[in-house]
């Protein structure tokens, strides 16, 4: 039963990174200098993200709900030790979601207010991506001290440092990469496609470099998890495969096949996440007392059963409706636009 829950957490996290991630990335892409193409780029992003952004970000809520119902100790430990980064992430989520919607639904599309929305959407997207990475990195650092009495070691030390920041940057690069690859197929305009392709390739390079920086920062801070990195053949294999797939990516980009590019990019990011997961499993959170595993922190069996039931029944409704959503919006590439 616990394994089913772990599978759902993993799957939701993956979908949040792939779908929500490209949504964050789109915000960051809007921060990059675009010159005269800014206005058209904005429309492409509005049309591409508008119908799906609400659904994309619910994967995160799903992770939160599974955690607090299925693994309440993990949830409360995280919410105490990582209060500050969680709060920072929330502020970002609030600002970016509302700025994006307000921009689209402002009845008077004046340049001045539109610019404010766009900047807020972009900055808060970058901000949230960084904090998301910092939170993820903090899970495995063995710096969460549940008995600490001073403010610094209890609430700041768990997430402070170069390594979490490097992961934050790495996550932001991944999001930009996903967004750029996704957006290539969302526009028919040649110059915009070229722009997204260039950003995608640059972001892909940044992902590889960022990954290396994460590794170096982890070594520098003697992160316990990453010391195992080189000794874990599965992780090494998976990350190696992700790196090799860059060749496939460049090929599909050169052949101008948006679908193949998307698939390859998605697979690359999935492999990176899988590598991270393999390094972790079966731990979920490493504290100074040692690792907390999914199995040792799981809620009572009756709760697990109800949660699994809710997830299965929920999936039976959610996946068909998501499929319908995508079919409605992706089957025809007409430019009727939104209301």
């Amino acid at each position: 039963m616990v394994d089913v829950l772990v599978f759902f957490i993993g799957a939701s996290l993956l979908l949040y990174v792939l779908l929500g991630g490209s949504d964050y990335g789109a915000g960051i892409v809007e921060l990059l200098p675009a010159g005269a193409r800014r206005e058209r780029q904005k429309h492409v992003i509005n049309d591409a993200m508008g119908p799906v952004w609400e659904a994309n970000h619910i994967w995160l809520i799903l992770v939160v709900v599974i955690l607090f119902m299925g693994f309440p100790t993990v949830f409360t430990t995280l919410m105490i030790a990582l209060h500050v980064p969680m709060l920072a992430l929330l502020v970002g989520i609030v600002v970016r979601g509302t700025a994006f919607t307000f921009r689209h639904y402002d009845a008077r599309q004046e340049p001045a207010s539109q610019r404010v929305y766009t900047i807020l959407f972009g900055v808060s997207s970058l901000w949230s991506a960084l904090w998301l990475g910092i939170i993820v990195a903090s899970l495995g650092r063995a710096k969460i001290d549940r008995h600490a009495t001073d403010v610094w070691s209890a609430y700041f030390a768990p997430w402070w440092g170069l390594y979490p920041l490097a992961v934050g940057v790495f996550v932001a690069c991944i999001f930009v990469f996903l967004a750029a690859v996704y957006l290539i197929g969302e526009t028919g305009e040649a110059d915009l496609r070229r722009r997204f392709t260039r950003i995608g390739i640059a972001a892909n390079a940044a992902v590889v470099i960022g990954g290396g920086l994460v590794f170096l920062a982890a070594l520098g801070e003697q992160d316990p998890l990453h010391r195992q990195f080189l000794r874990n053949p599965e992780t090494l294999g998976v990350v190696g495969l992700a790196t090799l797939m860059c060749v496939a990516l460049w090929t599909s980009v050169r052949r101008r096949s948006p679908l193949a590019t998307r698939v390859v990019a998605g697979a690359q990011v999935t492999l990176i996440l899988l590598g991270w997961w393999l390094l972790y499993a079966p731990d979920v959170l490493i504290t100074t007392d040692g690792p907390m595993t999914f199995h040792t922190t799981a809620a009572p069996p009756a709760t697990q059963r109800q949660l699994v039931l809710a997830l299965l029944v929920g999936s039976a409704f959610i996946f068909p409706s998501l499929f319908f959503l995508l079919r409605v919006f992706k089957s025809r590439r007409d430019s009727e636009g939104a209301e």
Partner: protein
Amino acid sequence: MDNLLAARATMAFSLGFHIVFAAIGMTMPFLMSAAHWFHLKRGDEEYLALTKMWMKGVAILFAVGAVSGTVLSFELGLLWPGFMEHAGAIIGMPFSWEGTAFFLEAVAIGLFLYGWKRMRPWVHWCTGLAVGVTGFMSGVFVVAANGWMNAPAGFTWENGVASDVDPVAAMFNAAWLHQTIHMQLAALQAVGFGVGGIHAFLFLRGRAPSLHMRAMKIAMVFGATASLLQPLAGHFAAQRVAELQPAKLAAMEGHFHTSTRAPLWIGGIPDVDTQEMRMGVPLPGMLSFLAHDDFDAEVIGLDRFPRDEWPPVVIVHVAFQIMVGIGMAMAAVALLYFWFLRKKHFPRWFLRTLVAFVPMGMIAIEAGWIVTEVGRQPWIIYGVMRTADAVTPVPGMVYHFYLFLTLYLTLAVVTVWLLRRQITTAERTLGG
């Protein structure tokens, strides 16, 4: 402000903010679907304009509701880790169903907002209705979870540890039914009256009057019907509270001393030191009747509870009076509404009355939540865990409070500004 007070203030403010958007999110899609239905049935373009005007409002308000709801799901743990550590496994179930409902709502709203001309008209209409239905379900699940805090069930509590967890029994706790009925009706009421009043105001101002009259009628049918049903639901709720949380009922009524033939107070301020009610009009025997269907029944007073288990009596009593007073007034206006609807003419003074009622339903909802939440104090899980034992050990919660105060007040101002721009722009287009 100490840490506990700051955490409570943050929670109260976050919830009080979110609840406005949640109520709108549960109700507006139904109003929108009604207008859309008239358009599809009659081919009337004005109903289409109305549908789209409301739809843009729904989109703006939904975004604010969605993000403030996300904040709440984190804040459960950020503010009350002591609570979530125990409660998560017991009462997570309605939240997991709420997650499902909210997911479907997000998909449906994407389909409806962007799906014009991409689906067959009636399929598209159904996606709009689905937004309302799933939003309504979310509300039911979340309020059921709150019911559990008032009437804990589905676990055994020994030495600070919960065992024998039964999430199904926890979800269908003794308070879930009356709380959800009361809340869902309140949402229909508040939003129906709010939207109806705004359109009454716009009608009186005279731009695009026929559009605003139609809008007012659709909104008021929902608001007025719910207002007439609410006294029944409220009575049912009061009886359940009398049984489940006698201390809360006693605080609501300023009932200090256990007595038979207990009076119902109209107005009045409870004086906690002398344990007397000041001012106000007592109706002898009415509280006994309302709580137990018998004018001579005994109603438990605050004297049966240790002093440190009393909720803040003045706040709860005043909030309760505000809620009931507004509810009664809304029911009266609802009767008038149906009377004028039958006569097919709304006098201007009645439309002005509707304008005055725009904020009333929301004020009543906020007051009602103060009754529920403050009336449960000092408990976070009634009779099991005190709020003070659930609060986060993280210091400096007051900054957390200021942060969200600033963020949400800004959001509120921008939202109102955007909605005004929507209305004036839509009127200008219609006015030619």
